[in-house]
């Protein structure tokens, strides 16, 4: 009896450990380099011209004029160039073997960290656009999708775990509106078939998870008292949703319409969830004060709309309106093509809304870092932060700018002047030579549904 009691408790501990696993801490390379004489766009503070930036073992250790490099540290002259924090893309599906487990409206149990594909050439393309970090997300087919994973674009490593950004906040994908309705209601004739159903799915999921917790608490009480009881069913799905309810997993919710955005804030209040990050949010401008009051954040397209009915009522001023109402806003790509020039996407907020340079660049640096819970690590050029730096030949918001170098943890991952034609990591021996394209190296944009 005693042995069984001990064994059951060990199993319970193992289950708790597994369900709250934050990903494996693989050792990844770190570099040291002195970048001399560049124009630093720190984002968190003033721009610093003709200033040096020192990275030692992957961390920014000094910013100033006339810095010297310790022995053995490479010195790179970047005078005349513009240095900014590595760009952070808060919504991406680059580098994934699967995007949508679209067979159930709730799949909170699935983890994007399990399906990272480090061979996707789009990582290299993103590095060529100065993007060092992305939020690899589950698609928007399900009301409650899977757990996302923040990754660094350490292209060149074969092990998927080498791309995991250790210590990043746990996040989960939710999706409202037409996508889950179409996939499940119309496609499989299951709930949700309307926006009412979408809300119900979320509330049901939360209620069932809380009920599940009660069963387990009762079971643990019996076991702790030294008695034996039939164990309840263990569920990865309910464990993940409890993580959401406990505030351990942040909701990143795909949404377009103002009514559904407002709906989710009301649901969150009912369940004491105080952090929400909305994705796309095309009608966010209609509920900007409400979003700000809740403390919700928004990650938006610069100017995509009209590709389906729920996205008709949109404006290119959305980014600016949200920002100026106090909503922490980022601009994302949700595209393996747009990720290559996110700096130009952000710049559209200057054309539509006249955000200043700093506010504009925050849209693709510090703001998405805050939304991903990694602002203490990246998003600005500050001493103590990771040595993630993107270097341009002109100001990043200039239409003439060209990204030249991209560093992650002080290691150079992109160099425009050492850019071999074939950067694929794996060679398919039997691929037809006349189809010399990356046929199998990445997934298309349509997989995530938008």
């Amino acid at each position, binding site marked *: *009896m005693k042995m*069984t009691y001990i*064994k*059951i408790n060990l*199993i319970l501990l193992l*289950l708790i450990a*597994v369900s709250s*696993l934050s990903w494996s801490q*693989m050792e990844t390379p770190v570099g040291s380099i002195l970048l001399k004489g560049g124009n630093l766009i720190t984002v968190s503070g003033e721009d610093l011209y003709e200033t040096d930036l020192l990275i030692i073992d992957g961390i920014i250790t000094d910013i100033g004029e006339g810095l010297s490099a310790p022995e053995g540290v490479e010195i790179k002259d970047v005078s005349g160039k513009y240095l900014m924090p590595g760009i952070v893309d808060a919504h991406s599906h680059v580098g994934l*073997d*699967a995007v*949508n*487990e*679209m*067979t*159930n*409206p*709730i*799949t909170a*149990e*699935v*983890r*994007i960290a*399990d*399906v*990272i*594909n480090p061979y996707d050439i789009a990582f290299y393309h993103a590095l060529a656009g100065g993007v060092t970090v992305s939020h690899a997300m*589950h698609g928007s087919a399900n009301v409650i999708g*899977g757990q996302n994973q923040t990754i660094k674009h350490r292209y060149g*490593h*074969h*092990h*998927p*775990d080498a791309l995991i950004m250790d210590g990043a906040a746990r996040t989960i994908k939710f999706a409202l509106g037409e996508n889950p309705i179409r996939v*499940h209601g119309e496609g*499989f*004739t*299951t709930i949700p078939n309307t926006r009412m159903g979408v809300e119900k799915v979320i509330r049901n999921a939360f209620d069932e998870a809380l009920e599940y917790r009660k069963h387990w608490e009762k079971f643990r009480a019996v076991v702790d008292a030294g008695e*034996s*009881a*039939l*164990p309840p*069913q*263990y*569920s*990865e*799905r309910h464990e993940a949703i409890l993580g959401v309810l406990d505030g351990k997993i942040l909701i990143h919710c795909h949404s377009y319409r103002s009514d559904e955005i407002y709906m989710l804030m009301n649901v969150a209040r009912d369940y004491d969830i105080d952090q929400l990050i909305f994705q796309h949010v095309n009608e966010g401008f209609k509920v900007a004060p409400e979003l700000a009051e809740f403390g919700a954040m928004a990650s938006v397209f610069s100017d995509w709309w009209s590709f389906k009915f729920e996205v008709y009522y949109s404006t290119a001023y959305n980014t600016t309106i949200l920002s100026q109402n106090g909503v922490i806003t980022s601009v994302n790509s949700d595209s393996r093509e747009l990720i290559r020039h996110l700096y130009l996407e952000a710049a559209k907020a200057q054309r539509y809304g006249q955000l200043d340079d700093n506010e504009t660049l925050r849209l693709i640096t510090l703001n998405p870092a805050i939304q991903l819970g990694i602002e203490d690590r990246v998003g600005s050029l500050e001493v103590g932060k990771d040595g993630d730096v993107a270097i341009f030949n002109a100001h990043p918001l200039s239409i003439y700018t060209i990204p030249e170098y991209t560093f992650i943890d002080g290691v150079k991952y992109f160099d425009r002047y050492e850019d071999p*034609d*074939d950067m694929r990591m*794996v*060679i398919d*021996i*039997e691929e037809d*030579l*006349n189809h*010399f394209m990356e046929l199998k190296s990445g997934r298309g944009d349509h997989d995530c549904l938008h």
Partner: protein
Amino acid sequence: MHNKINPITLILILFFCFSNGKIKAQFSGDEMPIISTDLFISNVTMKSHPGADYEKTNLLIQNGIINQIGSEIKAPASAKTIDGEGLHLYSAFINPLSHEGLKDEEDDVRRSAWRGAPGTTPLSHAGINPQNSIIDEFDLNSRGVESLHKQGFGLIHLVPRGFVMTGKGTFFLIKEKEDDNSHVLVSETGLFAQWRNMARVYPATPLATMAVWRDLINNTRLQLEYSESIKQSPEGKARLNVNNQTLALFPVVKKEQVIYFNVPENRQILRAVRLAEELDLDIILTNVSQLDASILSTLPENIQFFPDLSWPEHPHEEKTEKSEKVEEKERPNRRKRRTAEKQEKPEEDKSVPVGMTEEEHKKLLESRTKEYERRMNLAAELKNRNALLGFSMLDTKTADLLKNCRTLLEFGFTADEILAALTTDVATHFGIDAITGTVNEGKQAHLVLFDKSFTEDKATVQYMIIDGKLFSYKKDEK
């Protein structure tokens, strides 16, 4: 006194003389009882185990057992004799992983398609069937048996076809099915699993497959512990209803059975290893063809492999002095991948493809050749790490098995090492080394006789002996 034989007596005598013993038998149908199953092989060149020298000797097989080995032994009168002069004898080869003869699962998929919402799919409909057994499904016909025998194989570990968890493997002797199941050597070996999903049912992607594994194993563990507590003291405990799937997973969770994971590629390997580490399972990585050195170095030290025996085609090479020399010898054996569509391959186009410069073309061929060599040297690398158990033959055509084994001679293997991968190593892994894998007195008589050393090109099987039963493939004996 009359010396007259009673007619009735005469009739009875004549009947016994010409009845051929039919009156005695408890045998079925028209079957003639076998007078003797003894086999005597004379003057055969035998390699008893990998590493042993070839020796000329005689063997006596009785009741399916190798009874005597020695150059002095004589054939009993009852024995059928085989002239082994010029023949090479080995322990029959063991195919450690195959689907040979098992029916395609597509029919099963169509028949049992789930009509409800995909998220409500019962696991059995989604290809999660750890309880499946193939003992009754085994159906190698005589042609199938012959084609395997002619490659030197006398034993086979079959695993079920299917999707995520296909069921348990079974070890068979390669002969036609017997009603008494005497062709079954080990009824349940381990669980076979792979990263293959059915469309439109949960789990449809590796995402959900990982979650299903976690749920299933965690719940199995809970139920196992509870059921053991009931065995210890059942009083006052609610009854536990364990379904067949969970029951089939009990030995897996207890690590009494391993999981043979079909993982051709890097990322599939890593997912399997992740599950094994998280859920404390024993896994063997099978059918591996892509494994980067940087990933191999992160795997647990004691992890073992059955890499894929099917080889890619050699990339087209530019004519160089080196490649000309290779052609002068004999080109390495090549084979198309089993998954490639069967179509007439156009003659190799040596011109540079559209949009590519000559320099780029040359670089591409170099990188392909490097990748080819890496692929071909993978097995030797695993061998040197003591991680090689044998070879997966899941994706290798039967007709190519021996040829592909011989190719290993060019990629870091000696003949003895190949033999070990076909006999002793596999037998030890499956726990049947006490009865087969080497040619020793007392072991079961599963033997193969080639007309020359099996590693020589064009060596062919002349005889196969399974359970002491002789199968002849000698041309002039047909």
